[in-house]
C-alpha cells in the first residue's frame, strides 16, 4: 500500500522538476513518512533491496530539489543520508539511479565552498571504487565536470572554466546553479593575480580579462577593489613599499630571538 503510494509520488516528483520548492518539499515530507511506514528511512541489513531503491530515489529527488532551491545545507544533508544507500546498493548494477549526478553536484558544491580537502577525499573514494570497474571518474558526464573544473582552477586556466560554465557546456541545469558563485570566485582570483602581475591595464582589455559585460562594470569593479582608474588605464596600488620597514624590523626581531634561543639551548647542553 505505502509501497505503491510512494512509487506514485516519486514518478510525480520526477516528472515535475520545475515545481516550486514549497510544493516539492511538501511532497517530499509525505514521501519520507511513507518510507517510515516501510521501515526504510534508515537502511539496515534486513531492508529489502526494493525498498532501499525507493528510499534512495526519494533522497535523490530531495537533493536535486534543494539544489534547484539553492539550499546547500539541505543538499548536504540529503547527500549524507544517501551515502549508506549507495554503499548497500552497489552490487546490483541494474539500476544506477542518479548517483553520479548527485555526487557530481556535491563535488561542485565543495569546490565552490573552497573545501578542497573534502573534495579530494570524496574523489579518492570514487576513484578507489573505479578500480572495480564501477565508475570511470573522468569519462563520466557528471563526475568529470567538477574534476576538470578543479584542475583548471588549480593551474589557473580561468578562461577554460569560464567557457565550461557557458550554456550548453554544463551537463545539466542543476549544475548551472553554481555558475554564478564560480564566476565571482574566479573573478576575484583573477583580480588578485592581476594586482601582482601587471603594472597597469587598459580598461578595454580588462573587460575581457575579468569576463565583465561593459566598461562601466569594470570601473565599478575596480572601485570595489580599490584600484585607481586614470586615462583609460587601471593602476594597481603596489603593496610592497608599505611593508618594507616593518619587514626589516620583523626580521631583526626574528634573528635576535633565534640567537637567544640557541644560547639557551647551548647552556643546557654544556
Amino acid at each position, binding site marked *: 500500500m505505502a509501497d505503491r503510494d510512494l512509487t506514485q509520488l516519486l514518478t510525480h516528483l520526477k516528472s515535475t522538476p520545475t515545481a516550486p520548492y514549497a510544493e516539492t518539499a511538501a511532497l517530499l515530507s509525505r514521501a519520507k513518512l511513507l518510507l517510515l511506514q516501510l521501515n526504510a528511512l534508515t537502511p539496515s541489513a534486513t531492508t529489502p533491496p526494493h525498498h532501499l531503491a525507493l528510499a534512495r530515489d526519494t533522497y535523490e529527488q530531495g537533493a536535486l530539489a534543494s539544489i534547484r532551491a539553492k539550499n546547500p545545507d539541505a543538499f548536504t544533508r540529503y547527500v549524507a543520508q544517501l551515502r549508506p544507500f549507495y*554503499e*548497500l546498493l*552497489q*552490487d546490483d548494477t541494474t539500476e544506477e539511479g542518479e548517483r553520479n549526478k548527485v555526487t557530481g553536484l556535491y563535488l561542485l558544491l565543495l569546490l565552490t565552498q573552497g573545501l*578542497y*580537502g*573534502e573534495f*579530494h*577525499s570524496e*574523489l*579518492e*573514494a570514487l*576513484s*578507489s*571504487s573505479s*578500480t*572495480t570497474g564501477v565508475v570511470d571518474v573522468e569519462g563520466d558526464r557528471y563526475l568529470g565536470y567538477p574534476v576538470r573544473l578543479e*584542475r583548471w582552477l*588549480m*593551474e*589557473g*586556466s*580561468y*578562461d*577554460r572554466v569560464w567557457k565550461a560554465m557557458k550554456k550548453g557546456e554544463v551537463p545539466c541545469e542543476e549544475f548551472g546553479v553554481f555558475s554564478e558563485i564560480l564566476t565571482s570566485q574566479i573573478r576575484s*582570483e*583573477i583580480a*588578485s*593575480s*592581476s*594586482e*601582482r*602581475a*601587471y*603594472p597597469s*591595464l*587598459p580598461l578595454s*582589455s580588462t573587460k575581457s*580579462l575579468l569576463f565583465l559585460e561593459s566598461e562601466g562594470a569594470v570601473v565599478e569593479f575596480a572601485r570595489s577593489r580599490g584600484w585607481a582608474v586614470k586615462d583609460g588605464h587601471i593602476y594597481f596600488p603596489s603593496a610592497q613599499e608599505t611593508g618594507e620597514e616593518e619587514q626589516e624590523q620583523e*626580521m631583526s626581531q*626574528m*634573528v635576535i630571538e*633565534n640567537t637567544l634561543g*640557541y644560547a639557551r*639551548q647551548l647552556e643546557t*647542553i654544556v
Partner: protein
Amino acid sequence: MPGKTPDKEPVENGGYRGGKDIDMTDKDLKPKGKKASKKEGDDEMTVVVPPSKAAKQSSVPPPNDAEGDVAMDDADKTAEGEVKVDPVVQTINDIKSNFALLDRAVALFDARFSLRALRSISSIRKRLTPDILAQAISETYTSSSASASVARQMLQAIGRSDVSLGRQPGPEMEIDSEPKPAGKNGAKKEAKDVIPEVDVFLGILTQVILHDSKLLQQGLEFSHYLVDRIRSVNRRTLDSLSAKVYFYYSLFAEQSCPQPPSPQSPIVSIRPTLLAALRTAVLRKDVDTQATVIVLLLRNYLLTSHIAQADLLVSHTQFPENAANNQVARFLYYLGRTRAIQLRYTEAHEHLTAATRKAPSSACALGFSQTATKLLLVVELLMGDIPDRATFRQPSMEAALHPYFLLVQAVRVGNLGDFETIIAEHADTFRRDGTYTLILRLRQNVIKTGIRMMSLSYSRISLRDICIRLHLGSEESAEYIVAKAIRDGVIEATLDRERGFMKSKEVGDVYATREPGEAFHDRIRACLALHDESVKAMRFPMNQHRLELKNAQEAREREREMAKEIQEGDLDEDDLGGEFEGM
C-alpha cells in the same frame, strides 16, 4: 626475532633483496613488521632477563643481526643435527616451553615473558603442522579441564576434531634429550588447570596455521570465537597476546572474499568489534592492544577509502606514546596518507618522513619502506620540492621506485608532455600504489616549474611562445596561468597585456634575503631536537646516579677547596698548571 614469513618462498625472499617491487599487502608487511618489533624486544630482553631454563633449548636463539633469516635456518639445522630429536617432538617441546614463560608472566605479572613467548611463534611457525598442534593441544588439556571447550574449538578449526584430549605424552617423549621437564610438565598438568594465556597462545598458533594454509573462512570464524573468548576474560597479562589475536582477526577479514574496496567485504563488519576492543583497551590502559587496534582501524578505513572516518578516528583517539616502534611507524604512515589526500601536505610530509625513518632498516620490512617512500616522494613533489637523487639510488629501492624517478624528472624539467606520457604508461603501477589521484594533482606543479624555467632563461618572452612550449591550450590560458604563478610567488615577473609578453625581473641576491637565515635556523632546530631526543632515549643502569651524585659532590667539594685556596692566595702557579693537566 626476525625470520622470513613462511608463506614466502626463499627465492622470493632473495628477490626483494634485489630491489624487486613489493606490494605492501598485509601478508608481506604486517607479520614482518611484527617480527621486527619483537626483535627490538629481544635486544631489550637479553639485557634484563637471564635466559630461562625451560626456554633455552633452541626455542629462542636470539640472532639480533639483520641476517636473521639465514641465522635462523642455521640454528634450526644445528638443533636438529646435534640433538638428534624428531622434529615433531622438538616442535611440541618448543610450544610447551612457552607455557612456562606464560606461567611466569602471570605469576610475576611481567609482560616481558609473554612477549618472549610471542616472539618464538615465528620460529615455531615454520615447523608447525595441524598434526603437531593437535598433539600439543591434546597433551595440554585434559578432557575435564575448564577450558576443554576452547581446546575442542581449536581442534575443530584445524580439522583434527577426532583427536581426544588428555593424551599422555607418547613414548617418543622418552628419547627426548631432556626427559625431566617433560615429565614435570605432565605431573603439573594434573595438579592445576590450564591458564587462559595458554589458551590464547595456542589460539594464536591455530590462527597462524589457518592463515598459512589459506583457510580464510575457517580462520575468520575461529578468530570470531577467539576474540569473544578474549573479551570475556579480564586479565592484564593477556594484553600483548590479545593484540596479536586482533591483528590476525583483521588479516583474515581483509583477505576473505569479497576483498576491499568492496563495501560488502568482511572488514566493514568487523569494525564494531575493533572499535569495542579499542574502547576496552583504552579503559584498561592496554597499550599494546590500543596501538594495534588503532592501526588496524585506520588501515580498515583507508582500504575502503573512508577518509573522513579515518580522519575522525585520528582526531578522537590518542595514539599511545609508548607503543611499539613498528606500530608507531604504521600509524604515521596511515596518518600521512590521510593528510596527503586532504591536501595537508606539510603535515603529511612530516608524518611520512617520520614513518620512513622509524621503519625497520633490515630487509624484513622492505615492503613498508618502499610504500612509505613512494608516498613521501609524491608528497614532496606536491609541496614543490624535488626529492633527493640519492633516494633512488638505494639498491633495495631502485627498481621499485623507477616509475617515480621518471615522474620526478618530468616534474623537475617542467615538461607537460613527458609528464602525461609517464602517467599514462605507469597508470597501473600508480593505481596499485594508491598514489594515482595524488599524482594527477601534480599537473599544476609541472606547469609552474615550466614557467619558472622560462622566466629564468628569458628576460622577456611572448605569451604565445610560453603557450607553445608548455603545450597550453591558448594564449589566454597562458596569460592567466602566468598571472597566477606571479601571484603565488613562483616567479618574479610582470606581464604586459598590450604587447603580450612576460618580462622577468632581475633576480636579486638570495643572500640578501632572509632565506639563508631560515634554512640555517631549520637545521639548527633539527639538530637540537635530535640532541634532545637522544638525551631522552638514554638508559642508565639502576642506582648509578647515586654514585655520580657522590662523585659530583666530591668534585664540588674539591672545587670549593680550590676556590678557597685561590682566595687565600696560597695556591701557586705550578699547582694550578698541574691541576689543569690532570683534568
